[in-house]
């Protein structure tokens, strides 16, 4: 026994160990875009994660200061491109609320349905990528099969598949297509069959469970302190769904549950998003038969000027609590236009989550906080 102790001390003297740095990114399969993380590693164990941002910084906030409010809507598409509709909606709602424009129920309901479809498309893509990050490559194709149907609905409705630009101030750019209701209903029937398949493929896979359960645990207090939001925060039991907290558009008219879990680990974050897809279908089902006949666009002034003052509008995008903060001096351009992006806030928790975990866990954590890099860099 004593001999062994001596031996170990001898070895510790002879063998020098040290922490080392690893650059993950800017080009790396797990960073989902152009982002770099400087990892401080001890063998496989992560000691510190420092994100290096700005590889796709396009100074959208600065551009907004020189653009009119109508133009700003189209810039927001390029923030979180997977929830482009909700981003558009945030700006339109901000301007409408500031000007006191009350849109009719038809517009509200259509906006909500499209927003929920976008949320589902975003979560589907995330599900596929999550599988890829853990090594199951097939999920990506399955997710894209179902996502394609949503994209087709979007294409038919407004001509674009991803960055739709469907919202304008005071309404919608076009009326919905005649097939819209029929195709959305078809999609819901199709997806209700496929979503349990997702669950069987990944959620019930023992390796996947082992990889995610108990990994990257965040408590509710930590989540609040780090300013995290969206499904990532709801997995730790933080009630932060803006759709419930400050209902906008048609969310006040529907009855749905805010998906909450208390474990706070990667599997909870995964499961929250899966359950949110069920809730999205629930919302759409409640609204799809209730679209009233009405105008799809309200009358607005040709040049939109916001009154002097500060305005804040929050919406729930697929990633979380997206805030648009505008400072206006009464002119047609804002003096300051700030996007409070949910991905940027969520990224902040990554270091805490990944403390003393393995490289494989970092990839899982990064995947489950579901950031979109253009949303971080803006």
């Amino acid at each position: 026994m004593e001999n062994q102790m001596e031996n170990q001390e001898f070895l510790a003297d002879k063998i020098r160990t040290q922490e080392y740095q690893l650059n993950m990114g800017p080009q790396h399969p797990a960073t989902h875009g152009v982002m770099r993380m400087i990892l401080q590693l001890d063998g496989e164990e992560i000691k510190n994660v420092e994100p290096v941002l700005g590889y796709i910084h396009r100074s959208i906030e600065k551009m907004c200061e020189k653009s009119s409010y109508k133009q700003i809507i189209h810039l927001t598409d390029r923030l979180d491109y997977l929830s482009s509709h909700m981003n558009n909606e945030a700006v339109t709602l901000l301007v409408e609320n500031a000007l006191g424009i009350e849109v009719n129920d038809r517009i509200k309901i259509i906006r909500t349905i499209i927003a929920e479809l976008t949320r589902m498309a975003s979560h589907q893509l995330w599900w596929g990528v999550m599988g890829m990050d853990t090594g199951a490559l097939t999920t990506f194709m399955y997710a894209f099969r179902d996502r394609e149907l949503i994209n087709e609905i979007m294409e038919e409705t407004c001509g674009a598949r991803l960055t739709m630009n469907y919202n304008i101030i005071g309404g919608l750019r076009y009326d919905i297509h005649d097939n819209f209701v029929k195709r959305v209903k078809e999609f819901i029937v199709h997806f209700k069959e496929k979503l349990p398949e997702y669950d069987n493929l990944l959620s019930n896979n023992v390796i996947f469970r082992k990889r995610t359960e108990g990994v990257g645990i965040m408590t509710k207090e930590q989540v609040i302190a780090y300013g995290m939001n969206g499904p990532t925060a709801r997995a730790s039991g933080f009630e932060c769904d803006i759709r419930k907290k400050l209902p906008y558009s048609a969310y006040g008219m529907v009855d749905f549950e805010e998906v909450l879990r208390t474990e706070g680990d990667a599997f909870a974050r995964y499961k929250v998003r899966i359950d949110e897809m069920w809730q999205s279908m629930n919302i759409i089902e409640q609204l799809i038969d209730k679209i009233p006949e009405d105008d799809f666009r309200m009358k607005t002034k040709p040049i939109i000027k916001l009154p002097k003052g500060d305005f804040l509008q929050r919406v729930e995008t697929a990633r979380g609590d997206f805030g648009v903060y505008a400072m206006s001096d009464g002119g047609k351009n804002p003096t300051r236009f700030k996007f409070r992006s949910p991905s940027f806030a969520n990224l902040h928790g990554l270091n805490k989550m990944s403390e003393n975990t393995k490289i494989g866990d970092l990839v899982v954590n990064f995947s489950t906080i579901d950031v979109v890099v253009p949303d971080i860099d803006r």
Partner: protein
Amino acid sequence: MKKEELQSLLESWSLDLTFIEGETQFLEVEVPAEKLSELSLKLKEESDTAFDYLFALTGVDYGKDLGVVYHIESTTHNHMIVLKVKTSDRENPNFDSVNDIWPAAYFNESEAYDFFGIKFNNHPHLTRIFMDEDWKGWPMRKDYTDEFNMLTR
């Protein structure tokens, strides 16, 4: 807590606060820079206010002044307050960091530093988070000129 109640509570703390009048969405408070960390700590610790969620931290260039706007929310009471600090010092703008009160400020303060050159005292790691380390000037300031900007009118 309602806007008015919050205002009367904050007035009782006597911290030289200026309340912005008019039809504002939330209670907007202008704080002297040196009172910022004291007020922040109090807002977070007092059980009546319990502002524990830093929603957004925005650097602003008002033209003459530089400032920071804090949107702070309470997860227990579901109310929001807007704090504003300003300084007329454009050479070396300087505020206290709120990173130790709301860790969420960590990246956001770096962002404000990167775009406006606003320094935050006691911030553990203030870097140019988006721009290059050797970038000259503060790009989001109103007086920043960029000869390559195609949007200038």
